[in-house]
C-alpha cells in the first residue's frame, strides 16, 4: 500500500498532465475550426475551376487532339512523384501512422521508380528512415496562404514538364468529420479533367463561348492554377485533419487522466482512513493497557 504522501504526489502530477492535455485540446479545437473555415472559403473557386477545366479539356479534345496541353497529356509512367502531406508534430492519435502506412504501401505497389516530396516533418523523417528517395522537404504553417504553397506546386509542374517524372500523386488526410480523417491518394499530374458526355460538349459548342485569347491558351493558363489550387486545398484539408485528430487524442488523454485522478483519490481516502483507524486502535489499546 503506497503512503498517503506518495498518493498525493501522483494525484498532483496526473492532474497537471490533465491540465496540459486539456489546454492542447482547446488549442487544437480552435485551429481545427480555422482550418475548416479556410477550406470552406476556398471551395467555390476550386469547384468552378474544376468545371471550367472539364469544359475546356472536352472542347479542346473535340476540336483537335493536338490542342491538348502538356499538363493533361498522358504518357507512359516510368517515374512517379509522391507528395506526402503529414503533420510536423505527433500527439495526433493514429493519424501519422495511417499516413505513413498508406505512403509505404503506395510506394511498394507502384511499378517503376518513386520519388517523394515531404510536406511536414513526420513524413519527411519516415521517408528518410525507409531509405526511399526524398526529392525535397517543405514545412508549412498552420495558416498557409496560397503563396506559401505555390513553391511546392511550381516544383511539381517543373519536374513534370521537364519529364523527370511522369506522374504526380498527392497523399494527404481528408477531413471528413471531427472524429474521422480519411487518407486520400489523389492524382495531380497528368491532370484528369472531369468527364464530359457528347451532349455536354454539344451544348457548350452551341453556347458559342468567346475565348480570349483561345481555348488552348486559356486551358494552358488554367491547368497550372488548378494544380496550385489542388495542392493548397490538400494542405488545408491535412491541417484540419491534423488538428481534429489531435483534439480527439488530447480529449482522450484528458479523460483518462481525470479517471486516474478519481481512482487515486479513492485510494488516498482509503489509505487515510486506514491510518486513522490504525492510530485510533493504538490509542484505544494504549488506554486499555493503562487502565488494565
Amino acid at each position, binding site marked *: 500500500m503506497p503512503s498517503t504522501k506518495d498518493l498525493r504526489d501522483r494525484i498532483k502530477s496526473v492532474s497537471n498532465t490533465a491540465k496540459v492535455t486539456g489546454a492542447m485540446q482547446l488549442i487544437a479545437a480552435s485551429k481545427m475550426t480555422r482550418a475548416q473555415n479556410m477550406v470552406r*472559403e476556398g471551395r467555390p*473557386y*476550386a469547384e468552378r*475551376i474544376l468545371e*471550367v477545366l472539364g469544359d475546356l479539356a472536352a472542347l479542346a479534345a473535340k476540336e483537335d487532339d493536338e490542342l491538348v496541353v502538356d499538363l493533361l497529356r498522358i504518357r507512359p509512367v516510368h517515374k512517379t512523384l509522391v507528395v506526402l502531406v503529414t503533420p510536423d508534430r505527433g500527439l495526433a492519435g493514429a493519424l501519422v501512422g495511417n499516413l505513413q502506412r498508406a505512403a509505404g504501401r503506395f510506394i511498394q505497389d507502384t511499378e517503376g521508380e518513386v520519388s517523394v516530396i515531404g510536406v511536414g516533418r513526420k513524413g519527411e523523417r519516415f521517408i528518410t528512415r525507409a531509405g526511399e528517395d526524398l526529392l525535397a522537404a517543405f514545412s508549412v504553417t498552420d495558416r498557409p496562404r*496560397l503563396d506559401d504553397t505555390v513553391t511546392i506546386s511550381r516544383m511539381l509542374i517543373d519536374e513534370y514538364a521537364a519529364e523527370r517524372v511522369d506522374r504526380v500523386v498527392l497523399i494527404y488526410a481528408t477531413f471528413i468529420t471531427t472524429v474521422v480523417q480519411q487518407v486520400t491518394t489523389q492524382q495531380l499530374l497528368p491532370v484528369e479533367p472531369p468527364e464530359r458526355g457528347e451532349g455536354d460538349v454539344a451544348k457548350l459548342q452551341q453556347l458559342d463561348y468567346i475565348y*480570349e485569347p483561345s481555348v488552348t491558351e*486559356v486551358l494552358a493558363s488554367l491547368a497550372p*492554377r488548378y494544380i496550385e489550387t489542388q495542392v493548397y486545398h490538400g494542405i488545408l484539408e491535412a491541417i484540419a485533419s491534423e488538428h481534429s485528430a489531435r483534439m480527439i487524442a488530447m480529449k482522450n488523454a484528458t479523460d483518462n487522466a481525470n479517471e486516474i485522478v478519481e481512482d487515486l483519490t479513492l485510494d488516498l481516502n482509503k489509505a487515510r482512513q486506514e491510518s486513522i483507524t490504525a492510530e485510533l486502535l493504538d490509542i484505544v489499546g494504549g488506554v486499555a493497557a493503562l487502565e488494565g
Partner: protein
Amino acid sequence: MATFQLDIVSAERHVSSDQVEVLVAPGIDGEMAILPSHAPLLTILKPGEIRVVKDGQDSFIAVSGGFMEVMGNRTVILADSAERAEEIDEARAQAAFDKAEERMTSRDTDVDFERAVQQLARARTRLQVARRRRPMAPTPPTG
C-alpha cells in the same frame, strides 16, 4: 437599370458577391466592359483594376490576374488574389511598392527579375486601387 450577378472568388476566399450594372475588367487583350446579357465569354485576366458600378456608384477591386467567365446573367471572376479597395491599407501598399521598386533597381544578382517585375505590377495596382477610395483623389473620366 438592369443588373447581373457578379461573384469574385479567389483560392483563399470569397471576395464578393453582388448584383451589378457594369463591370470593367483587365482582359488579356485589353480592358473590357461587361453589361447585362453579354455573350458567353471566358478570358484570362491581367493584373489590374476591376471597376464595378452598382446603383450608379463606382467601386474598385485589385486583382493580380486570373480568369473571368461570363455566362448569361452571371459572371464569375476566378482571381489569383483579389482585394476590395476598402480592404487595402494604403500605407502598407505604398511600403510594398517602394520595396518592390528597390528590388527592381538593385544590382543584386540574387533578385529574380521576373518575379520582381510581377511584384511591382501587383503593388502598383494595389496602391492605385487603395487611392481610389480617397474622397479627394481626382476621379478619372469614366465611360
